[in-house]
Each structure stands twice: as C-alpha cells, then as structure tokens.
C-alpha cells in the first residue's frame, strides 16, 4: 500500500479516536499536538489501525514511532 491510499482511512481513524472531525494527519504530527492523545487513546488508535488495514504491529514497531510520518510509513510497508 502507498502513502496516498493509507492517508484517507488513517485520517478517518484519527478523527474518530480523538473525536475531532477537523483533524488532518501530517508527517510531523506527534502526541502533544493532538488533544487527548495519551497512552490509552494510543491503544485505541493502534487497535483501530490494525483492524482497518488488517495488519498486526509488534511492540517494537509501536514503540519505535516518533511521529505520524513514521506511522504512515510503517502502515504502508506492512499493509497489502
């Protein structure tokens, strides 16, 4: 899967999980940029992404993310 096909559904997931219909993901976005992005909503986000893209992320992959750009790259690599 490439970036362009990942971003629209990922946007929808972010909007849903953080309950903000105006939210648009960007590469340099990090947790402090988004209201309500704590360790709990992080888990909600991971589970929603796994379900949407039919992938399974390892602990190290999740821990290794430093911003949303990394997340988009990771999903693009793993999702078919």
């Amino acid at each position: 899967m490439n970036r362009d096909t990942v971003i629209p559904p990922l946007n929808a997931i972010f909007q849903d999980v953080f309950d903000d219909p105006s939210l648009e993901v960007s590469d340099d976005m990090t947790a402090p940029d988004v209201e309500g992005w704590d360790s709990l909503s992080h888990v909600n986000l991971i589970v929603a992404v796994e379900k949407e893209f039919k992938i399974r992320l390892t602990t190290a992959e999740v821990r290794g993310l430093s911003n949303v750009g990394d997340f988009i790259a990771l999903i693009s690599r793993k999702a078919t």
Partner: protein
Amino acid sequence: MIAQKTASLDYGRLVRESRKLRPDGAHQNIRVAILSDAASQQFVPLLKTLFHENCVNAEIYEGAFDAIELEALNPASGLYEFLPGVIVLANCTQALRSRYYEHKGDDFLETASQRVQRIWDALQRHSSARVIQCNYPLPYERQFGNYDLKVPQSLYSVTAELNSRIALYARQRSNALVCDVEAIASYLGRKHWFDERLWAFSKAFCHLDHLPYLAQSLVEMVLSSMGRVVKCVILDLDNTLWGGVVGDDGPLGIAIGPHGDGEAFYHFQQYILSLKKRGILLAVCSKNNRETAIQPFLENPDMVLKYEDITVFVANWENKAGNIRAIRDTLEIGLDSMVFLDDNPFERNLVRELLPGVIVPELPEDPADYVRAICELNLFETSSFSLEDTARSELYRQEAGRRELQTSFTSIDEYLQSLEMKIEVARFDPAAVPRIAQLIQRSNQFNLTTHRYNEAECETMMRDEANYLPLYARLSDRFGDHGLISVVILNVSAAEMEIRDWLMSCRVLARGVEQYLMTRVVAVALEKGVSRISGHYIPTAKNAMVKDFFAQFGFEKVLETDGGSRWHLDPTAYRPPTIYITEKQRTS
C-alpha cells in the same frame, strides 16, 4: 435481564456513542465504582453506553490504578465517599501472574485467596454496596504442559483453584456476586482474549475487541440486581418445541425424542425444563386448536415438557400479541420480564412491533442451535436463587387455573361456589406459630391494627386461655392449598369481647374468608353470652382497604379520632352473609 441487544458489541461504536450521552430524566440511576489492577478507563465509556441503552444513567467512579486494597481498606477513601451502589472488582490475570512470579514461597494461593476475603470484608464493613468480583481467565502459559494440572503450585492450577475459592466465598455472602470472566474469555477464545502488547502499552484488561463482552456481562449483573429479570418464557409449539406440525403429523408423528430428527428439540425441551425448575415460568402461545396443541403433552411419551410444566397454555387462532397480553394479565408480570421464542419470523416481528417491551430473540434456522443462541444472549441472569423460586411455577399455575375458570362464569357467586373452598380455623398451635408470626410481620393492607407480634408474643397469647382466643385460618380450593392466610386475635377477658387483631393475606381477598371468620367470631360471642363485640381500626399508610371493615358487618362506630375508630356490635343483631366456604375437618 439481558441488556437489550440493540446494536453490536463493537468497541469503537460504544466509545463513539458514549460521547453523545446525556442523562435521561426518565431513566433509573445507578452509581458504579470500578476498581481494577488493569486500566479501568477503557471500561467507562462501554459501561456508560450499555447502561444507557438499557435506560439507566450510570455514574461511574474509577479507583486509582492497581489500588484495590488501598481503596477498600481505607474508610476515608474516594470509593466510600462516592457512595456506590455497586462495586466492581475487575482483577485481571496478567496482574495475578506478575504477583505469582514475584511471590516468594509456596503459599501464593493462600495469600491470594486471603487477599480476596480481606478486600470483601473491608467493602462490607464500610459500604452496603453489592460487590461484583471478576474471576480470572485461565492463563495460556504453562510450565509443565499437561502436567500443570498435577502440580498444585503451577500458575494454571493456582488460577483455577483461586476461581473455585472465589465461587465458594461468594456462596457464603449475600452481597457478593462473581462475574465469570473466565467463562467469557474461554467462550470467545483465550488465544485472542489476552493481548500482551496492549497490556504492555497501557495495562489494557484484554484485547479491546473483547472488552465490550465483559462490560455487557457486568451491566447484565447490575440490571438483574436492580430487579430487571426475566420471569417467563413464552413458547411457540410447531417447529419450536418440536419438529413438524402437530395438526398435520399428529401427536405421535411430530419430531421429538432422544434420537434422530427429534433430538435437537429434545435437548431444547430439556433446557427449557431446567429453566422451569429454577423458577422461570413457562407459557405456551400457539396458533392451533387447543385440543390439538395439548395432545403431544399428554400423549407423546418422548415429550420432556409435560402439561403440568406449563403455567399458562394459550392455543387459539387469535394474534399472538393479544394472547401474550392475556398471559401477562394472568401472571401479573411486566412485559419486559417475558421472553418470546418462536421459529416464525412473522410472529417474532409482530410481537416486537406491537409489544416492544417483550424480549424477542432471533432463533437460528437450525433447531440444533436454539439452546446456544439463547445462552449467548444470557437472558436469565439473576442475582438471587432460593427454594421459593423452584416452587413458584406451581403457585402461579394454581392462580392461572383459578382465573381461567373465572372467565367462564357469569356471576361471581357461581365462580366462588365452583372453587369448592375449604377452610380450617384453629387456635394458635406451636407448629403454626412461625408462619403466624411471619404473616403478622408482612400483612400491611388487610390489617386492622398492625400490631407486629413476634413468635414469643404469639406463644404467650397461645397459652393464655383465660384472656385470649387467638385464631388462624387455612384455606384450600380445588386448585390447591393457599396455606395459612388469616389471623384473628380475640380478647375474651371482659364481659365484652374485643377483636384485638384481624389480618389476612391479600391473595385471598373477595373469597368470603373474612365473612366466614366474622360469622365464627359472632358464634363464639353468643356461646360465651357476651352482649357486645368491640373492634378497633388503626389507620396506617397502607391499610385504607379495611377502614370500613366493621361497617359492612353492621358494627356501629362509637368513636373516631386521628388514632383510629372504635366499633361496637350486638352479636344477636348479626345477620350472616352468604358464604361459599365449608369447614374442613381437622385430620390431626
């Protein structure tokens, strides 16, 4: 009662819905505290939404993470300040596992089970809340393979034994219930229940996809303890209780029995019978001629359910919604405490449409899956079970029989006559005293003076023949025995006779019992030669029903104050009313 399965148990949906919730003034309210050694935050939106969908506004208190003991043992904790109605102890297997691995010594099981009791004790001491303890899904990790079971200190054995002990402790305490999380996890699949990544990231109780099932179970337990329970199952017959159509195939031609085509229905009937034995009433609602519908119950030896198992049997060609209303009226229970099981989607939809309160589960096409489909809905959740439950069916069946008869008579006199009522009146005796005292404690409406005598006081009057004539009455009729239903205590010490107490169970109102007893009382007075019978009515918030009790028998009101009224009767002026009760000769 089962939470209404209005929509899917999807984690994302429940979280989304929870954001839109506003308390509804028409809903019941409940305060639920949740204490967990996993993250409790993820429970909250699920519980709120599920409660809301069942017309309950839930206020939820979350204890600090992994601070169950601290909150429970400290009487000044936020938990007790919150004044919860229900306290959920959501212990999880991963936290138990950590403690197990860190524990020194062989006494982990003892330590863990004492901890459970210590926490329950503290909760009971400082709160009157109902406690719901989650048990532990069995761990997947094994040290010895299958040999784990032979090693009592293995994690697997310890967890299984701890679950047994939790169940055992809960049986000894009326305020504690166990949420069988192990049953939920096993049924969904423990392989998918545990998610070690989510546990590592945020101490998630289990994979989030499964959390709604646990939340649902907790909601069902709380609803049942609020009195929302199923009391009656209404059954269709053809292709629900047996295979085929009795009108076409005949009572012996239908598919029912332990082998072959009838086996699925046989199992279904066994399950339904087990529900009846635990206190769920059974009713039949079938589109059939009554005679045809009854035949299999009477004539087919492979039928597990017999005619006597059915409290109300309705078979006619009317629409089922109307018939279900009639069943409701006969049993005097709410529509929302009834489950309707019918293989026909048309009938199911009709009942859903016309009687929205009734619980109407989808039945799968294959009758072999009926029991499973019903069990997955957990329709019969309860928070109590007593011997009385097992006898309920019989009591209701008698009452239903009486009503059925009543509708076929035009005059009440004809009806009362047909009941063939027998009464037994006797002076208090030691065997009857416990029930007498119970009736004295419980009777509120038909009670002239509402003196609450205990057993010892009843025995004192029983022995004091010079001053008291304390009487009780039992009533039976052709449908069954009502038991001891009335108490009349006469003071016979003076030249006038005083009716000191008169009370009766409201189950036997309008049968002529009080008329029968008054005639007896007057007979006693005449025999003793007293010139006046006096009586007293003391009003309470509940006994307005009997404020004119004496007037109907010709008593004259001689005094009326805020504290009640006083009445007199000259026994020679008494005119006995018509009564359809005969005296039963005592056998002993």
